Structure formats: C-alpha cells, structure tokens
C-alpha cells in the first residue's frame, strides 16, 4: 500500500464515521411545546424532513401539531403517529392540524407514510402532580 492508499483508507473510515454519526447519532434540535389556551401547540415544517423532529410535550394536556408541508414529494404526503393511532394526509403548501392527548410518558415516533421521514415526540409526566 502506498501513502496515497493510506490516505484514502483513513479518509474513507473517517467519512463513514461522520456519515453514521451525522445521520444516526447527532443530537437533533429539540422543541418544547408552548402551552397556549390549554393546548400544547407545535408548528412543524415538513420539507424533506420534520423541523423540529424532536418534540417535547407534557402528558395529559392536548397536543396540537401544525404540520406545514412545504415539499411536494409524495413521500411526505402523509404523517403517521402509530402510538396515537393517527394518520393524516398533508396537502402540499398548507398547514394541517393533528390533535391528540398524550396519556402516558415515553418516547414515540412519528413518520411519513413510508417510514422514511422520522420525528420523535417525548412525553413527560406533568410536574408537581
């Protein structure tokens, strides 16, 4: 192996490391739901992914996710929240409401209809109760 070979090997390993860290391990931006009129409202931008993709809410209070779909890929046309039994069609360039009341604490996934786009909802127990 030549010096160039070694550089390519080391570079390749580093790149593989970066890819897996960036897509699988890197911390996501977390958004805590704002309580407004008794409802925890979170606007979510749908554009090749969910922004934010990590949402924190409190159990017991209704949650309103406002999905604003900005991309026209048919991949993102549906949002599915399996644990909450919800599935909604998101018309492109419109905001679609998804409302539910989380009852138990835990981390739940939401995905697009094909499971390619992913987000997480972390439900925490209400404090002081």
């Amino acid at each position, binding site marked *: 192996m030549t010096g160039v*070979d070694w550089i*390519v090997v080391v570079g390749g390993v580093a790149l593989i490391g970066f890819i897996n860290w960036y897509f*699988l391990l890197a911390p996501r931006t977390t958004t805590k739901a704002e309580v407004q009129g008794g409802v925890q409202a979170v606007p979510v931008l749908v554009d090749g992914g969910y922004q934010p*993709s990590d949402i924190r809410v409190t159990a017991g209070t209704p949650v309103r996710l406002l999905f604003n779909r900005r991309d026209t890929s048919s991949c993102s046309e*549906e949002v*599915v929240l399996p644990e909450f039994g919800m*599935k909604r069609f998101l*018309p492109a360039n419109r905001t679609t409401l998804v409302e539910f009341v989380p009852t138990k604490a835990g981390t739940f996934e939401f995905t697009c209809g094909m*499971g390619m786009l*992913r987000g997480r909802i972390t439900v925490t127990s209400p404090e002081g109760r």
Partner: protein
Amino acid sequence: MSLQTSQGERTATIPVSGMTCASCTAHVAQALRATPGVKDATVNLLLETAHVRFDPELVKPEGLAAVVRAAGYRSELSEGEKINDADARDLEHAAEYRDLALKAVVSLAAAALGMLLSMPVMSAIAASAHHATAADPLMQWSHTWLDSWLSVALPWLYATNARVLQWALMALTAVVMGWAGRHFYTRAWSAFGHHAADMNTLVAVGTGAAFVYSVAATMAPEVFLASGVSPDVYFEAVVFIIALVLVGNVFEARARRNTVAALRALAELRPATARVVRDGREADLPLDHVVVNDLVIVRPGERLPVDGDVDSGASAVDESMVTGESVPVAKRAGDRVIGGTINRTGLLRYRAGRLGADSMLSQIIRLLGEAQGSRAPIQRLADRVSGVFVPVVLSLAVATFVVWFVAVDQAPLARGFAAAVAVLIIACPCAMGLAVPTAVMVATGRAAERGILIKGGEALQRAGGVTTVVLDKTGTLTEGRPQVTHLTVVPTEMDESHVIALVSSLEAASEHPLADALVREGERRGVPQLPVSTFSSIAGQGVQGDVDGHLVIVGNAMLLRSHAVEVGALEATTAVWAAQGATPVYVAVDGRLTAALGIGDRIKPGALEAIRRLRAMGLDVVMLTGDHRATAEAVASAVGIQQVVAGVLPDGKAVEVKRLQAEGRVVAMVGDGINDAPAIAQADVGFAIGTGTDVAMQASDVTLIRDDLAGVGAAIELSRRTMRTMKQNLFWAFAYNVLGIPVAAGVLYPFLGLLLSPILASAAMAFSSVSVVSNSLRLRMA
C-alpha cells in the same frame, strides 16, 4: 370543516379567510361567542380556521359560517373538504404525475442524445489513455457494437472535435440536472439539514459525485493523465440515471394512484345535489342544505343523494357499490335506503336520515381511509431497516471506493468511483417502504368493493392467521326472527292458501311472537284478510276464534286435545320438524284437524355454502348459541357444523372464545356486532355481519355490510393472499438490495469479471419499486 359529536354538544372547524392580524382573530372569536348556542370559539390566524364548540339544537355549522361572513370575513363550508381528503390527494397526484411524466420523457430523450454524443468522446479518451477493458456488460456492448455501427452511420460525429462534444455533453447534463433532476438535490439538501437521508440523498450524491468528477475530467484532463488516470466522463450516466429514476417514479405514481382507486370510487358516489320538497315544491339543493326529515325524490336511473327511510313509492335499488350485493334490492315504504346507491325501476320518495359525516357512505369512506393508512405489524422489520438504510448504503459506497482504490492497479480512481456510484444508485429503500402499505391499501380497497370493511393492516394480518371461526347462531346463521318453515295440510280438508288465510287473519289479533311469523306468512303469500268475529287467547297454548264463519283453533297439541281434536295423524311429521329445530303448531277448523305448521328461525340462504367454503379452507367452524342443545344441533347439522356449544349465556360467549384461544387457536368471532360485542372484542378477529352501524363498525375488526356469511370466507381468503403478497414484497425488496448492492460494489468482479455500470444500476433500482407496487396491485384481481 370537520365535525365531532358528543352528547348535546358538537365541535366544528370552520374555515375563515380574510384575517390579517391578531385583532381580526379576536373579532371573529367574539362574534362567534356572542352567537346563541356557541359555548366556545377559538380562531387560528395561521390555519385560517375557527374551532367552535356549540349546541347543535340551537345553531348549525351553516349558521356559524354566516356569523363569520356577517363579521366581514369569508367562510365557505365545502362538503368535499369535510368528508374526505381523497379529492385533494387526487388532484395533487395528478399534477405530480403530469410533471414527472414530462420530465421523464424529456430526460430519456436527453439521455439517448447524451449516449450518442458520448460514443466518440469515449473513443477519443480511450485513445488518449490506456483504457481498462470494460467489465460491465452494457459498456462492453456499447463499445463493441454501438461504437463501430455509429462510426459508420454518423461519420461526421466522429469527425467533430471530441473536446467540443464533451463540453456539449456537460452542458446537456447540467440542464437535465437543473431542470428534471432538480428536486432530487433540493430534497436531499433539506433532508440533510434535518439529519435525515432518503432516496433522494442516494440519487443526489451518486449523480452529483459523477458530475463533479466528469467536470474535473473535462476541464483539466491533463491533471488526470499526468497521474496516469484516464479522464473518463460519466455525463451520459448522470442523465440516464436521472431519466430512469424518473421513469420509475412515473410508473410508481401511476400504480399508487390505482391503489386508492376503491376509495376514489366510493368518494365519487356522492351526487352534488338532492331533489327535495320544500314549501310544497321540488327544488334541487346542494347536499349541505339537506336537513334530517327532508322529503327526497329520486327518479329511476338517479343516484340516491343521502341515507333515509322510504316514505312512498316502490323500486329496485342497486346497492352493489356500497354493500357489494349484485342483485338490486326491492324497496318500499318503511325500508331503509343508502345514499350513493342507484334507483333502478320506480320513483322513490324518502325521508332524509343520517347526513354528512354520519351517513353510511361517509362512515365507510372514513373507515376505509383509516384502514388504508394503517400499518401492519409485519412492517416493523422493514421500518427498522429503512431507518438506518441510507446511512448504511452511503457507508458501503465509501468502503467500496476505498477497497477498489487500494486493491486495483489499473485506473483505481475511475473504477472505484464507478462502483461507488453504482452502489449508491442501485440501493432502493423505497421498495421496502412500499412493500406492506401498498398491499394493505389494495386489499382493504378490494374488500370494500365487495362490502367488506377491514379495519386496517393489523386486522388483515390477524385475519390471515385465523384457524377457528366461531359463529353465533341467532341472526348470524339464521334470520334471527321466527318464520313459518314447514307446512302440511290434511289433504281431504282444504287447500294451503285457505288454511293460511284463516290462520293469519286470526293471528293478526294476537301479540305472541310466533303469531307474527304466521301473519307475515299470510302477507308473503298475499292471501286475503278474512273477517274475525270472536277471538280468545289461551296463554301458553294458542288462540281460537271465528274466522269467516269457521271456528278456527291454532295452538299446541294440548290446546287441540282440550277441544277433543286428535293430532295423532300429523305427529310423525311434526316430530321430524321438531328435530330440525322448528316449533309445531296445529290448526283445527270446525273441530277437525286441518293442518300443522312448523315455526322456526330460518337458516339464512347461503349459510350452508359459506360454511362449506370455510371448512374447505381448512378452518374449524364452531357454533355458539344460547339455545337448547336440541335446537342448536338441528341448525348445526343443517349447515354442516360439527362443533356446537349450546346453552351459552350472552356474557358467556366471550369466555367460550377465550377458552378456544387458550387451546392455541386463532379465533374469528362472527356476530351481529351488538349482542355479541364482548365476544367479538375478545376474539383475535371480530366480524360484525349485516350492519352499517357505527357501533358495530368500531367494535369489530371486519364489518360485513351485506347480510351474507360468504363474506367471512372471502375476507379470510383475501387476508391470506394479502399476507402472501406482503411477504413476497418484503422478500423481493430485501433480496433485491442484499444482492444488488454487493454486485454493484463489484463482489463478483474477481470471480466472474462482472461489474454493473451506474446506468444498469439505475434501471434495476427504478424497476424494483415498480415491481413491488405491481405485485400488490395483483390483489385487485382477488
């Protein structure tokens, strides 16, 4: 607009447009709150909606919209919007399809042109550098056949300066990437921003890398040559990849449109207007304006706009689109009709019943929509894989490049590069993502066309694994109400219809449940109603009276004997009836034994055939009933059921289902959905038969809209086929990637000298997802 109902209170989301600021929302909210009947109202500026809680007795959604309009903003309730989003989805899909198709066709043409231009370019490059023999079948073919043929056919092309052609090729590629392939890059980029990677990432990285490499080779070939690397260009590959991925997307989009065909067909059943009598005149009104109890008029050949009960008129109605029943159903006063069905023969006037979102059709559409979007548990594996799939493929591509670069002496950069791009392009996460959902969509849609509503992917999967079918007797295997099932007349006395006329006339005065069966028999035969002058009822024995001048006694053997009438002559016959589950009733006219009738709960037509089919499918069939063993055995043997559990109390049915489950069976419980609710809920798969009520649909996994047991076998059969299809799809999707990626990486090269060009890889990728969707669409033939 969406509606939800709870007791005495309803909530509705009403569109409000024209609001510009927070004070506008306050204004609208105030106006709504001031309306009598409104309990609460919140207005959302962002969504342009008002969320209103109100008392439906005092105010209607239409009134709320009027309040908003009076406040100076726009608000239109649209029927289409509140029922289903199938239309919006359709429009969007149609636009996407047209756009994709145009891009695919144009880029395919560009790819052909690019291929043509690249031939002389490649020959020129090969001449300037020691080109490695092409290992890819496509490249070999193009070099040996296309190249020589082309140089004869188009000598002027080969005479043109290769550098000029190369620059032209680069420009063509840039245009195709920027126009037809634009969304791959923009979507990949925005996904990258969210730490996400999908299909677009693979295409974008693959083609992007190939393009950058080729641009460098075009602009500074001397740098490549100086370090002993052939300045190959992959422009035509980039264009081909984009074109083929687009072609795949077009086919996929078309196939996906077909998967929701059933839902679309149901949504189209709703007419836009209804002919309603208002103020004594007929008027065509939009569906939103029809209210409960409106008198609706439907002429032959017209579609019924809403659900209701027939007021007057008689007709045959084609309900096939809703219930799957192929024979038109006779309707007359008092019968229930369903919106969306077609009136065939006569004029019908009926009272509007459940409207809008409460209507049968809307409920079916909603349930089907939910079912089609639901997930089957079998998908979890695919979900887990697709979550990490793209990063893994990206890593494999890098590894492929490194291995080629280090292991190969001749043109390591170019060959490592081509293999890495092929890996990126051949990988297809879409096939995995589509494997299960498309099968669920097609299967639930196909079932709905036959009047079978399957609740979703999970119900489908469980129904596919059923081993034992438990049937409730009353109302499921039988009609559920007593009828005259047997009749024998002492030949010397009088004819059948005269007997029935006497009996039904007499029994019309009685309130006994069995009397109802006798009266209906009279109606069915159309016998005349005869005058009854005296009538008396003997509790637990029967009735007697003067009918048309005859003394008629109808009752059990004891009653007749007490009138000195011997029944011995018919006892042998009635004993047979009793063994078949019918209750014998004797008739004496003027003191002479005249006839005997058997009254029983008639077995539904088709029950025998349906059960034979279930048994032929290898299923154990068990009958469950609260009746005595003798009656139960009689019905069971008539329909060919060997296992009978009799004398079960209503709440004992669930226990019985549980007991069967404890034996390791997967149990389907079939009942009417109301009395059997606990047993249906306990079963692995609950079937509610012959019902369109909300309660039954919610409680059961499978609803048979038509009162036909054949649906049980059909649903299980379809579920089994769907499971097979899902498994085939998953297997194909996994196998495709598991085999395709290593071949693209060049695993076979050391042994067979086989390598895939990025172009072949893109063709394979494009058609892997199409094949999965097409396989699911085969379920439509089921």
